[in-house]
C-alpha cells in the first residue's frame, strides 16, 4: 500500500491549515457563502437537508486497518456512529458541523487521508478496480498508475475551475469492476503493438440527466504520455466546454456535440502543441510508487482447498458461493463483505463495524481493505484456511450477508431521506425489494441481477446502468418511480430503457417482481437476466409489466 513521504504529508497538512483559515473567514463573514461554497466543495463538504455532509477520499478504494479505525473514530465523534460508502469508493459522513470540519481533516491527515477534490468542479478522486493486485484477470497492477494520477491531479493549477466535476476511472482487466465507461475518462491498461503496456482511452461517459457511455478516443496511448494526454483532454474541455448551463457542462456533452471524431482531433492537436512543454513523469517516480504495491508476503505451498467439514455448514457455504472470489495466489481468496443486509441501508457501516473490519484486515488480510463502487468492502488477500474463522467473526457483527451481485445487492443513492435535490425516497424502495426477494433460494435461482436506484434525475444511484433501474420522479407532488431495463455498468456497458408510465412505491416493487417472473419464464439454462433481456428484447417484459 502507498505510504506518504514527507512531501505528501506536508501537502495534506497545508490543506488542513488552508481549510481552517477559509472556514474561519467564512464564520467571521469575510467570505460570502457564494465565495465559500466552491472552496468547501473542493474539500468534500456539502450542505444537505439536515446538516453538512463530509466526503472523505479513498484513493482507488484502498484502505488500511489504521485508516478504517480512524473512519470509525470520526463516525463516533463527529457524526452519528455511522458512515456511508459511495458509488465512487469514497466514504461520507452525515451530520457534520461546519466548525468541526477542520478538526476532522486534521484527524484524517494523521492517517494519510483527506477530502481533497471529493466534490466541486475539479478533478475528483480517481477510482479503480477493488480487486487490484489480487485478481487473476488483470494484465498489470493499476494502482501505481492510479497513485501517480492522484498526485498529479491534486491541486492542479490549470484544472481546478472546470465547467463541472471530472471523474477518472482506471481498470486493468477485461472485467470492468469500476463502471469505467460511466466516467469522464475511462483508462484501461492494454498491451500495445510492441507488447509494452499502455492505455486505451475512452472519454465522455456519465450519468445524470443525459447519460452517455464513454466513447473511444485512443485505442492505445504509450504509457509515458499518460499525463500529457489527459491534460490535453482536460484543456480542450476547460476551454470549450459549456459554462452557460450547468446541465450541459460535463465533458460528455462536449464530446457528444462535437462528435467523438472531431473531439479526438482537437485533443490530438492540443496534445501535439502541449507535448514539448509538458514533461513526462520521471520513470523513477513510477518505480518508487510501484514498489509500495509489491505483493504481500504470501505463504507458498498452502492447500488450495477449504475445509470440507466447515463447508458443510449451509450458511458458510452460501457465503463462499457469493462473497468469495478467485485469487491469483494459490491458497488465498478474495472476500467481499456485503454492506447490504436485509432491512439495512446499502453502503452504511457503523463505527463498531469499521473497527471490526480493521481488526479482521490486520489479522487475516495483510492489513488491506478496499471499498467497491457497489458500496461493499473487500478483504483482498485471505488464506483459504482462514475463511471459516473470518466468516464467523463477520457473521457475529451482521457483516456476512451472502448476496454479492444478487438481487438484494442494490446500489442506491440517499434519496429524499437525506438529499435536498431528491424527488423521491430511494432507500425504502431498496429495502422493500430486498425484503420481497429475501428468500435465499429465490435470490440464488435468479443469479446475477443488478438493481440500481436513484431518487432523482441526477442519477447518483446509477439507475441508467442497472440491469433493472429505478428512478424517483415527482408527479404532481407525489413520489413516483420509473422502471428501466437492460442497462449495464460493466465491460458490456449499456444504458437502460424506460419501460413506460411510473408507479408508486409498492407498485414499482410489484413491477420489479413481474419483470423478474417474466425473466424466469423466458430464460435458457444458466442465462443471466441481462442476457435474456438482450436476446428477447423489451416487448415481452413490457407486456408482463403493464399487462
Amino acid at each position: 500500500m502507498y505510504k506518504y513521504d514527507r512531501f505528501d504529508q506536508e501537502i495534506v497538512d497545508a490543506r488542513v491549515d488552508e481549510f481552517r483559515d477559509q472556514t474561519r473567514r467564512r464564520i467571521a463573514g469575510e467570505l460570502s457563502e457564494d465565495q465559500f461554497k466552491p472552496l468547501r466543495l473542493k474539500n468534500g463538504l456539502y450542505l444537505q437537508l439536515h446538516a453538512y455532509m463530509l466526503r472523505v477520499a479513498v484513493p482507488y478504494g484502498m484502505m488500511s486497518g489504521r485508516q478504517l479505525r480512524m473512519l470509525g473514530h470520526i463516525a463516533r465523534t463527529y457524526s452519528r456512529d455511522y458512515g456511508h460508502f459511495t458509488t465512487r469508493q469514497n466514504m461520507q459522513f452525515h451530520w457534520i458541523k461546519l466548525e468541526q470540519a477542520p478538526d476532522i481533516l486534521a484527524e484524517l491527515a494523521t492517517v494519510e487521508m483527506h477530502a481533497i477534490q471529493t466534490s466541486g468542479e475539479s478533478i475528483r478522486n480517481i477510482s479503480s478496480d477493488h480487486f487490484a493486485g489480487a485478481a487473476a484477470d488483470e494484465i498489470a497492477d493499476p494502482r501505481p498508475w492510479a497513485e501517480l494520477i492522484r498526485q498529479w491531479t491534486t491541486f492542479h493549477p490549470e484544472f481546478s475551475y472546470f465547467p463541472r466535476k471530472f471523474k477518472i476511472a482506471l481498470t486493468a482487466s477485461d472485467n470492468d469492476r469500476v463502471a469505467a465507461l460511466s466516467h469522464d475518462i475511462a483508462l484501461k491498461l492494454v498491451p500495445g503493438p510492441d507488447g509494452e503496456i499502455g492505455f486505451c482511452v475512452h472519454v465522455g461517459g456519465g450519468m445524470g440527466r443525459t447519460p452517455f457511455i464513454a466513447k473511444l478516443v485512443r485505442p492505445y496511448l504509450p504509457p509515458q504520455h499518460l499525463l500529457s494526454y489527459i491534460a490535453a483532454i482536460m484543456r480542450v474541455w476547460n476551454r470549450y466546454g459549456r459554462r452557460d448551463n450547468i446541465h450541459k457542462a460535463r465533458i460528455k456533452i462536449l464530446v457528444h456535440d462535437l462528435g467523438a471524431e472531431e473531439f479526438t482531433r482537437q485533443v490530438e492537436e492540443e496534445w501535439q502543441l502541449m507535448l514539448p512543454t509538458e514533461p513526462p513523469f520521471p520513470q523513477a517516480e513510477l518505480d518508487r510508487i510501484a514498489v509500495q504495491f509489491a505483493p504481500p508476503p504470501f505463504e507458498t505451498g498452502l492447500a488450495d482447498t477449504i475445509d470440507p467439514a466447515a463447508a458443510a455448514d449451509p450458511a458458510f457455504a452460501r457465503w463462499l458461493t457469493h462473497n468469495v472470489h478467485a485469487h491469483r495466489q494459490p491458497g488465498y481468496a478474495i472476500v467481499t463483505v456485503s454492506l447490504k443486509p436485509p432491512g439495512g441501508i446499502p453502503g452504511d457501516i457503523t463505527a463498531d463495524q469499521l473497527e471490526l473490519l480493521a481488526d479482521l484486515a490486520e489479522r487475516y488480510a495483510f492489513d488491506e481493505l478496499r471499498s467497491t463502487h457497489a458500496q461493499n468492502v473487500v478483504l483482498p488477500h485471505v488464506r483459504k484456511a482462514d475463511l471459516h474463522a473470518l466468516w464467523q467473526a463477520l457473521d457475529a457483527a451482521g457483516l456476512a450477508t451472502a448476496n454479492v451481485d444478487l438481487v438484494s445487492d442494490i446500489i442506491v443513492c440517499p434519496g429524499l431521506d437525506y438529499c435536498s435535490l431528491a424527488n423521491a425516497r430511494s432507500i425504502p424502495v431498496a429495502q422493500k425489494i430486498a425484503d420481497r426477494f429475501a428468500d435465499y433460494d429465490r435470490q440464488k435461482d435468479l443469479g446475477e441481477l443488478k438493481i440500481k436506484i436513484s431518487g432523482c434525475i441526477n442519477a447518483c444511484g446509477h439507475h441508467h446502468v442497472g440491469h433493472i433501474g429505478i428512478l424517483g420522479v415527482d408527479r404532481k407532488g407525489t413520489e413516483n418511480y420509473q422502471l428501466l431495463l437492460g442497462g449495464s455498468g460493466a465491460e458490456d456497458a449499456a444504458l437502460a430503457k424506460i419501460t413506460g408510465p411510473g408507479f408508486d412505491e409498492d407498485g414499482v416493487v410489484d413491477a420489479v417482481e413481474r419483470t423478474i417472473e417474466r425473466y424466469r419464464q423466458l430464460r435458457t439454462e444458466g442465462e443471466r437476466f441481462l442476457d435474456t433481456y438482450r436476446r428477447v428484447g423489451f416487448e415481452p417484459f413490457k407486456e408482463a409489466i403493464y399487462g
Partner: protein
Amino acid sequence: MDNLLRFRDDEPHEEPAVTLDAFLEQSDATAVRLEAGEDARLLIPHFGRLALVEVSFPRFRDGRGYSSARILREAGYTGELRAEGDVLVDQLLFMRRCGFDSFAPAQPLDLDVVKASLERYPNVYQTAADRSVPVWNLRHG
C-alpha cells in the same frame, strides 16, 4: 487600478489594453484584453510587440483564463500577464502557477491573507508555468 498587485520588477505598462479584435487590426497596439472565451493562441504571432495581456475573469468560477495563461507561457510569452475581474485570494496561488504575474482584482485583497495563501504550500505535484519544482523531481534529485 488601485488594487493592482504585481509580481514583476519592471514598470507597469501604461498603454490601455484593447480588445482582441482591435489588437489584431491595429499593428501598433502593445496591450490586449482577452475575454474568457477568446483564443489565446491568436496572440502567438504578435509576442514581439506585446507587453501586457489582461485576461478577464468574469466570475471566479470561470476557469478558462487559467488555460489561456498556460498557453501563452508555453508559447514563450514573457511579458506581463494580468488576471482582471473576479479575482479572489483563494485562487491566487493557482493563477500564479499558471503564469499570471499581475492581478487587478475588482475588490481589494487583504495583503496578509495574500501572503499566507501564496506561501502556504511548501510543495507541488506538477510542473507548471512558475518556478516551483514538483516533488517528483525533488524525490529523485
